[in-house]
């Protein structure tokens, strides 16, 4: 090898290092530009989407009532080993903070928190606090026990100790029909109070039924739309999207009118002679399904349509020219190519369906309410944020799980939303 070729090579190396630096510089610029473009949306999402979710997750385990109102008692309770009754200092600080709370009217939160575990704790707490002496009559333990014998029960203090912890599994357990017994182990709640598991099953079942129906109704529709000339299919697409132009409340209300006992559907069926008695179509499961399918159908049709539009008719022709019957051609050539659309549509409808609230609330009966109804109930009626957040969290976790399964089965990169 000659000298000139050697210098030539090192020259090339320097050249390539310069090139790399240059590339990095331009790449960095491009990345900055890209970041600047998505930043507004990211910030929006972080503030209005991620933060509330994180807030909800925190709320579902938050246990701040006792620690904020009675910080010393809470600290003392956390020191205690939980065996039998707590030592006198716990009683003492509890009595002091109870009196203070009574004076400052800050006991309501603690009372509510305790009733979640022991229903009559509210009255016990207020009865004890009312006119509590400044100094104990003997020990504080005896004094309090004398005022209400509940304070002499180790089970009460087990509850108090759980209420003093920084976080509580109480709500999460309750949303899956579980609770902690006095010894702290997780047990099923009494069967008359066990409702949430059933409600979750019902919620997922109803969303699944709606999804299947949307697929069954939407697939042929999307297929037909995709095979029409664009002018016609665009027009029909507007009809499919028409429901989006009215509020969900109005649409649901319209279904109540249509489906009620004296509504046009029942009257038409009676007039034709198909039925002699009006059918119960509303305030039951049928009504909920009809209204939900109507509202969610476009979310199935849109991704299906967009995927099908992209499938050239030449594939089906090719398949038949190769000897496949029309059915085989559909099954082996067309259908597999629509799977990304089917996946996207089903996921969309199912996730939206799982979170449905207003439609079941308006069109359904007592047995047709979904999880969101109870979330709303705990938020608006009983102001039990912990329970509301826990139910929401379980729903979120279950949905994410489902999404994960879907991603494993179909592959998220193959999904097309439209």
């Amino acid at each position, binding site marked *: 090898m000659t000298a000139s070729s050697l210098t030539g090579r090192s020259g090339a190396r320097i050249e390539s290092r310069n090139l790399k630096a240059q590339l990095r510089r331009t790449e960095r610029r491009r990345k900055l530009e890209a970041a600047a473009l998505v930043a507004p949306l990211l910030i929006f999402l972080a503030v209005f989407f991620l933060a509330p979710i994180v807030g909800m997750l925190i709320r579902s385990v938050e246990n701040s009532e006792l620690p904020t109102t009675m910080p010393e008692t809470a600290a003392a309770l956390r020191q205690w080993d939980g065996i039998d009754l707590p030592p006198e200092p716990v009683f003492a600080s509890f009595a002091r903070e109870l009196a203070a709370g009574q004076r400052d009217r800050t006991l309501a939160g603690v009372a509510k928190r305790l009733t979640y575990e022991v229903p009559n704790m509210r009255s016990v707490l207020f009865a004890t606090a009312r006119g509590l002496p400044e100094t104990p009559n003997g020990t504080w333990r005896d004094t309090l026990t004398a005022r209400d014998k509940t304070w002499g029960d180790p089970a009460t203090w087990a509850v108090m100790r759980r209420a003093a912890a920084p976080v509580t599994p109480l709500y999460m357990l309750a949303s899956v029909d579980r609770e902690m017994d006095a010894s702290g182990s997780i047990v099923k709640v009494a069967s008359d109070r066990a409702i949430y598991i059933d409600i979750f099953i019902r919620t997922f079942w109803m969303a699944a039924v709606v999804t299947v129906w949307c697929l069954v109704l939407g697939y042929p529709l999307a297929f037909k739309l995709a095979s029409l000339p664009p002018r016609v299919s665009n027009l029909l697409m507007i009809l499919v999207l028409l429901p989006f132009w009215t509020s969900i409340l109005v649409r649901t209300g319209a279904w109540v009118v249509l489906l009620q006992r004296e509504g046009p559907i029942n009257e038409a069926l009676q007039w034709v002679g198909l039925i002699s008695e009006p059918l119960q179509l509303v305030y039951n499961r049928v009504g909920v399904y009809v209204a939900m399918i109507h509202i969610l159908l476009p979310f199935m049709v849109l991704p299906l349509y967009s995927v099908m539009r992209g499938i*050239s008719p030449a594939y089906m022709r*090719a398949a038949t*020219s190769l000897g*496949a019957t*029309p059915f*085989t051609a559909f099954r082996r050539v067309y259908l*597999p*190519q629509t799977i990304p659309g089917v996946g996207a549509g089903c996921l969309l409808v199912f996730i939206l369906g799982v979170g449905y609230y207003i439609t079941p609330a308006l069109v359904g009966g007592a047995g047709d309410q979904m999880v969101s109804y109870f979330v709303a109930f705990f938020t608006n009626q009983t102001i039990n944020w912990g329970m509301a957040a826990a139910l929401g969290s379980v729903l979120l976790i279950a949905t994410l799980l489902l999404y994960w399964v879907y991603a494993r089965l179909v592959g998220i990169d193959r999904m097309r939303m439209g």
Partner: protein
Amino acid sequence: MTQTDTSRSAGASAPDSPHVEFKDVRKTYDGETLVVKNLNLQIRRGEFLTLLGPSGSGKTTSLMMLAGFEVPTSGDIRLAGRSIAGLPPHKRDIGMVFQNYALFPHMTVAENLAFPLSVRKMPKAEIEDRVGKALRMVHLEKFDARRPAELSGGQQQRVALARALVFDPQLVLMDEPLGALDKQLREHMQLEIKHIHESLGVTVVYVTHDQTEALTMSDRIAVFNHGVIQQIDVPDRLYQQPCNSFVANFIGENNRLKGVVRDVAGGKCRVDLTNGETVLATAVAVGQAGETTTLSVRPERIVLDAAGVGRDNRLNARVLERIYLGDHLRLRLAVADSDDFMVKVPFADDAQVFQAGHAVSVCWAAEDCRALDPV
């Protein structure tokens, strides 16, 4: 099958009976205009027949009727002597290569090739065997596990070809299969397809609007225009003896001169050009004396000046443009009514004289000049 008696009466297995036969086939999509007008066409077994014509002339439509994707409005199509009206496409056993290949995107190359075999319920071992053979035929052995999207255009084209052949169809249809490839690859694939055709002996009906492609590959070419076959012939006759002006213009380079027939005698005619000169030509598609006609002369049949001594025709011309092409010269001349009269001159030492503005004389034999229908 539900067919008329005539379908059975024909000798289905006679060796010289046409493989494919179009009989008075007509097709209209809208009930107003005929896209295919009275198509009569016979294709021999093992023949490579090309349908050539401008866009919209009904080539694809004819092919689709043969494949079964379109129904003839009237007339009959016969395959091996039997009418195939009412036979659905998947029972016709016709291999087909589509313009954009239509390879199934969700299947690998091997799965694509196995598709026609597996729908025929062939045993696994045989499928593998045949797929392997087909891949070797198109030189893609190493690509069996790729998806179509991971192949180049030429490779996709070969997969499409292999897929149309893998189930041993007797007839293969190709609709502009090379249209999406660049020129070099196209020329390469033309030869490859031709070799495959020769080695397999299948009947091929090939559609293109590229005349060079048609001339290179075909046994016979059917030239389409406005839904009518203008001429059907072997490539050299089509080029040398076009039977009307459309074919003469569509195939190869052509010089046209307008004129009026003076007289017709013994297959020859004398034609008066617009500038008063007279030409002796072969009468192909001319009417009576006094009717107009278009003369057609190929550029390479024309000789200039002294070289043309003794030819039937000698006309005055003027050089408008001189294009140097290495081994030959191309001259654009003004002759009679035409001012893009092209001539090919072999490059010789005296070529220097043909400069723009020079007056020359152009000469050709009566056999090389065809009097055709006026345009």
